[in-house]
């Protein structure tokens, strides 16, 4: 099926998310839609899928104009979409999720024909080697398998155009390669695939055509043979360096020593299993691993958000486990949480108030129980300028800032204390390339000023770019600590739990 978008415009209030976008997707091709976060890719696909109404423009399928009233119409027309956040009902089985919305019924009572749905799942699963059990419950499945369920869902409705929205965000490198293989198989079977992504490597691997979107507009098309630098500069609008410029580390004394740290969650599951390592002053230790392998628990246990059930952490000779969070923070730890909108900022509060969350009860910001607005404002102005926070003013609410600017506010707050250790969890998740560069520079600067740094990241590129040493976590344990020039395949295998004694030296 051939898809054509003509002059699609979508506005949210004053903000134009899509500005007269033209796009043609030919059958049997992979069309990559490349752009930074917030460039308007997902909005465009949601318009196409009938979730949003376009303000202007039209959609043509096989040269016939169509109007979709909702996702149901889009699916009937043969468009399937795998959303970035999976649209799966967790307590349901695979078969139930696949049949939802177009259920077959049988018998006089018109009850669900579960057997038909099972057969369909099995048939598609076998055709593309998905290895998915129709009776498995979604919440028991790993993320990669859930994604294949989403693809089965689309294919079971005979989708001839499949939209994949940032499909690799949650996958290991190996799972990513498998997915790209599936995309190729689908293309060869005649399906048109739209791949929405900001990851250049994937685009180069599978795309037949590339359309680059920036700030809601199509800024150009590119051949898959284009270099990463070309694609990146098209995407960002200026030349970008893909590498982080940093001097070799000059590690000093051991700053943080973690010994057998163990965390057991409320359900009795061991989330962090006797983790031991050390970080020296002036060194970045990056923690790699697929999300949910104990990284969150590690950072939270260091900070004291979750209590350690065994083991200890020592910062510059002082034990920090078992202390209150406040004591830990003021002993010289800076913490950039992984979910900035949930844990990093208070969205409804102003930028200036967010900047003093950690010191609001201390002089000179507070005197005798009363806040000192003048001092706070002055300090906030300084930070906003220093960290290049793009805002209308320091009284703008933090929640109304873009992701990159929110993260700058978090960094400005956390880096304003004298730090011995900086812990940053996925510090650049969801940020545009410009902000990523900025965040990386500040982190390296912190290292160079003599702090120990722990970076947790699910993005292998980021880990490799920043790390002086890489610790790989799997199932709550550190599988190994390796130098940053370790090749990706080895890292990928370690992230999947493979234990190589030599590598793990």
């Amino acid at each position, binding site marked *: 099926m051939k898809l054509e978008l003509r002059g699609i415009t979508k506005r949210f209030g004053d903000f134009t998310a899509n500005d007269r976008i033209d796009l043609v997707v030919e059958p049997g091709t992979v069309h990559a839609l490349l752009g930074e976060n917030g460039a308007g890719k997902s909005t465009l696909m949601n318009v196409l899928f009938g*979730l949003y109404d376009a303000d202007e423009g039209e959609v043509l399928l096989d040269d016939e104009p169509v109007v979709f009233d*909702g*996702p*149901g*119409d889009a*699916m*009937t027309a043969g468009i399937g*979409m795998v*959303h970035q956040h*999976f*649209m*799966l*009902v*967790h*307590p*349901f089985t695979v078969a*139930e*999720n696949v*049949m*939802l*919305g177009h*259920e077959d*019924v049988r018998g006089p*009572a*018109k*009850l*669900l024909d579960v057997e038909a749905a099972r057969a369909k799942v099995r048939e598609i699963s076998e055709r593309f080697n998905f*290895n*998915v*059990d129709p009776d498995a419950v979604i919440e028991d*499945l*790993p*993320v*990669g*398998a859930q994604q294949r369920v989403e693809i089965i*869902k689309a294919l079971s409705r005979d989708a001839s155009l499949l939209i994949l929205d940032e499909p690799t965000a949650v*996958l*290991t490198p*190996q*799972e990513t390669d*498998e997915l790209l293989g599936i995309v190729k198989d689908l293309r060869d079977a005649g399906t048109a695939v739209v791949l929405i992504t900001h990851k250049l490597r994937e685009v180069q691997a599978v795309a037949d055509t590339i359309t680059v979107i920036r700030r809601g507009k199509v800024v150009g098309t590119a051949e898959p043979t284009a270099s990463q630098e070309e694609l990146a500069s098209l995407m960002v609008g200026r030349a970008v360096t893909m590498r982080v410029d940093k001097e070799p580390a000059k590690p000093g004394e051991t700053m943080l020593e973690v010994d057998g740290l163990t965390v*057991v969650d409320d*359900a*009795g*599951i*061991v*989330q*962090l*299993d006797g983790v031991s390592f050390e970080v020296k002053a002036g060194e970045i230790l990056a923690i790699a691993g*697929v*999300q*949910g*392998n*104990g990284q969150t628990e590690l950072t939270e246990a260091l900070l004291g958000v979750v209590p350690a059930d065994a083991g200890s952490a020592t910062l510059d000779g002082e034990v920090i486990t078992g202390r209150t969070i406040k004591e830990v923070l003021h002993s010289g730890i800076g913490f950039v949480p992984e979910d900035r909108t949930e844990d990093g900022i208070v969205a409804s509060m102003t930028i200036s108030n967010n900047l003093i969350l950690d010191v609001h009860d201390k002089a000179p910001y507070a005197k005798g129980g009363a806040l000192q607005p003048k001092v706070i404002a002055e300090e906030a102005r300084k930070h906003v300028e220093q960290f290049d926070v793009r805002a209308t003013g320091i009284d703008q609410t933090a929640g109304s800032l873009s992701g990159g600017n929110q993260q700058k506010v978090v960094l400005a707050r956390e880096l304003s204390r004298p730090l011995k250790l900086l812990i940053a969890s996925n510090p650049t998740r969801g940020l545009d390339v410009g902000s990523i560069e900025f965040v990386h520079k500040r982190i390296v600067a912190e290292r160079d000023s003599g702090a120990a740094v722990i970076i947790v990241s699910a993005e292998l590129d980021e880990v490799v770019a920043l790390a002086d040493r890489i610790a790989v*976590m799997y*199932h*709550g344990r550190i599988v190994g600590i390796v130098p940053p020039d370790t090749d990706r395949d080895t890292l990928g295998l370690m*992230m*999947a*739990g493979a234990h190589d004694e030599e590598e793990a030296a």
Partner: protein
Amino acid sequence: MTATVADAPAAPVSGAPIPPKKWGAAIALGVIALLSLIFFGFGTPAGSTTKFVIARKTDFIQLPSLTVPSELAAILLSLVGLALAGWVAYRANQRRKVGIWLPIVYGMAIMGALLTWAGAGREATSIQLTGLLTSSLFLAVPLVFGALAGTLCERSGIINIAIEGQLLAGAFLAALVGSMAGNAYVGLIAAPVAGALVGLLLAIFATKYWVNQIVVGVVLNMLVIGLTGFFFSTLMSDDPSLNQPIGLEKLPIPLLSKIPVLGPVLFNQNLLVYILYVAVAALQIMLFKSRWGLRVRAVGEHPKAADTVGIQVNRTRIRNTVLGGAVAGLGGAFFTVASGLAFGKEMTAGKGYIALAAMILGRWSPRGALAAALLFGFADALRVQLGAIGSPIPSQFLAMTPYLATIFAVAGLVGHARPPASEGIPYKK
């Protein structure tokens, strides 16, 4: 490669997934059985007897009444309870669950011990078994309808605190319309209309204006109390012919109603109770085996996922809330036309809230709602019966037990009760 795909690379949960051993249930059952042994077993005067009357005089088959030595029976029944608690502990040690039979048998044993003890040495009175069961079912009727209403709404993602108001509105309209028509069955038809209207108000506020559903529910309850109270003291007291005690007659089912004990309990009831049987069975099947049920549950769990496959989320929610309201309204008819009583101010007396508890204890399923409501109904009937024979326990304490059980159940002692993930959250595009 494919063989390892599913398990190897990305196991989302880290650590060793060994579930902890859960001793809570075993300890609770053991303590209760032990208390039963001490109080009911050894607390029964030696040599006394307890008389259980199994059949009523009107029953088709007359079974002889049963007289047992009180102390021995209470001790034996308590020991059965203790043994079952031991079995639960044994299974917990193996991290295995016990079947549904266990709590039923356990409950019967402990209740048996209680009744034996209460009836000990009172030759003049006896424990009316059939009567006890009949009134259990009878008292459970509004709770079952209320819990079904709650299940219907919450499975689609709307919290229905307004069950109380829906019951009351149903009771009121059934009495009014039934009296006007001079026919209780007409009242039975009117009752769901009243409940559905309350449900519609809830649905509109919840889906269109995104008002907090618990607040709307409570306010609707107040509204219905106020409105029915107003009409009761004006319209109905001005013209008593508009509020008459008319009742549905009993419709014994041939043959089935002749079965000893169960026959008269289950099959010599009025139409509302028969509707209840059908409603529980139909909704159980519909909710878990039909297209409609799958969609409703999807909307309650993950509305956006439902939307992306073309299911109208808010339409489903409105429809279910109105249907739920109608079911609760029908249950409201219990208080007036099904009991042969005239309408009285605030006559539902909090039964709607108890129905909510039954819904939670029944884990949002029609079958569970029935079981939980029967438990509450039994406790209520027991209170009445023990009050009648003059038991040594203050009846208020007995009346409390099912609610204590609910609190423990909801707190996770009997297993974690998981509500639909999106209940109470408005769906905004």
